[in-house]
């Protein structure tokens, strides 16, 4: 089995599956073409505390498990606290995901960010100045992050998806930058485990 028992449990018995008809914020990410769509609904009380969260997911077992556990992680939290959820926290809560399924946790965290931003009335963050990871090919950091959300987990896969590293410099400048971005999404290796 490629998944641990906790992932399987959250897949077989998903918590908080469903919709909230009068939700205060809804976030949807992913695309059917890529094989994952997640939608998260949140209910927020007058003190800014998330009182309920529900999800619906089209995707594999780890996508279902990631979105389900992510809703549990934000219920009872202040929206500003909940907005800080990262994909690594989702992976840790599940006790780990296979490397090629890390993008599921990225999508789950993204869906929550979107739902909270909707509630706060914030438009999705627009960076004023585009940060280019690969200057030769003009590949923005956002495109690299998009590739990770769609399942890329190595520099080569990101290069394939975005065209980065294929410019004049042959990846001399951008490879280390892409590696850095990847490391931000990879679950931290715990001490004592290989």
């Amino acid at each position, binding site marked *: 089995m*490629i998944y641990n028992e906790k992932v*399987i449990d959250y*897949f*077989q018995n*998903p918590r908080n*599956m469903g*919709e909230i*008809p009068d939700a205060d914020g809804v976030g*949807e990410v992913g695309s*059917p*073409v*890529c*094989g*994952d*769509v*997640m*939608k998260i609904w949140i209910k927020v009380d007058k003190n800014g505390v998330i009182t309920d969260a529900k999800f*619906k*997911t*089209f*995707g*594999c*077992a780890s*996508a*279902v498990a990631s979105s389900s556990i992510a809703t549990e992680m934000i219920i009872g939290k202040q929206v500003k606290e909940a907005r800080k959820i990262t994909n690594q926290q989702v992976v840790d809560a599940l006790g780990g995901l296979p490397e*090629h399924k890390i*993008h599921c946790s990225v999508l789950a965290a993204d869906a929550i960010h979107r739902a909270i931003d909707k509630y706060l009335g914030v438009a999705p963050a627009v960076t004023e100045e585009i940060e280019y990871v690969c200057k030769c090919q003009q590949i923005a950091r956002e495109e690299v992050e998009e590739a990770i959300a*769609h*399942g890329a987990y190595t520099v080569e896969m990101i290069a394939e998806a975005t065209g980065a590293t294929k410019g004049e410099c042959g990846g001399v400048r951008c490879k280390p930058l892409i590696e850095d971005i990847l490391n931000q999404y990879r679950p931290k290796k715990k001490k004592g485990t290989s």
Partner: protein
Amino acid sequence: MRKTYLDNNATTPLHPEVKKVIVGSLEIFGNASSEHFFGQEARKAVEDARKRVAELLNAKPDEIIFTSCGSESNNLVIKGVTCQDLSCKALEESHPGKHIITSQIEHPSVMNPIKSLERQGFKVTWLPVDKYGLVDPALIEKAITKQTVLISVMTANNEIGTIEPVAEIAKIARKREVYFHTDAVQAVGKLKIDVRELGVDFLSLSGHKLHAPKGVAALYIREGVKVCPVLQGGHQERGLRGGTENTLGILALGKACELALRERESNVKEIWRLRERLREGILAKIPEVIVNGHPEKVLPTTLSVTFRYIEGESILLRLSSKGIAVSTGSACSSGTLEPSHVLLAIGMPHELAHGTIRFSLGIENTQEDIDYTLEVLPGVIQELREMSPLWPGNKRAC
């Protein structure tokens, strides 16, 4: 828990008679190349098995080479005919061409060696298929050039079961004097395979797809056709495949072929009946499904179904927890996120390809297996659809 195995295209359980042969032969340990009686006992077993494999295919025993797996048989043809990746260059003179014709729906063990040749400068024609997965022989005829050294088209597809017009392709290949290989790993034991009638030059088959163990397979090489060995070593297998013979595996394959020759027709009749019962049951009980592959030119064992709005791995794991073993049409669970190249080649959009399940039946399946599957499957599909934000049924329910 009731266990129902519907993944026979992945691998099959040992036939009870094959098991008996293996157990009864555990004492045969001699090296088939040794001249003493221990060796000769093994040699006799190997040659006897070769005869049985040949009989199933209507080939001569000398035309059968034993290998370790279907992938090895396919690699031996593709690399052996083109004489690439090898230090042996004996055939380069006789086959100077650097063009290969194959289909877009081949197994990775055909596709990847050919891609590797493509990287080394070969020209490759990747033939498209129609919506059923059929290759058009007329396209092959058009694609052949003076440079063409090999045509490789599978006998039947492993994912959707479509049966290719192999005899027609062979006729064209023969007329144009180009070698023709067919990967028949999914077809042998299920379809009547007569290499003389088909007119192929090479045909691959694998033991574990027809109730022999893993680790043994064979390749038919038509008399007079020359290839380079890929696994170089001793003189075994007419020098085409070095390495001491896998005696136990080979005699198990021989038994499996003997059984296939005897039992194929009656087995297949029953398997087709069960397959049709499953297909009709799914169509009657579950809305928004698509049955893939050709309606008639299809392996009796294979049923590929797309369930809209949900994803294959989820279906697989939910069915597995209820004792039903199937496989996804997409490669999602095996480490890549791209949907199956076969489903994309038949023109299926990505989002549907992600929701495709392959049911593959075998001799051990019973009507109870099918009825149990039809009892469990609608609930699994409904639950997952209720979880899916894409399912329009949700909106109607609200």
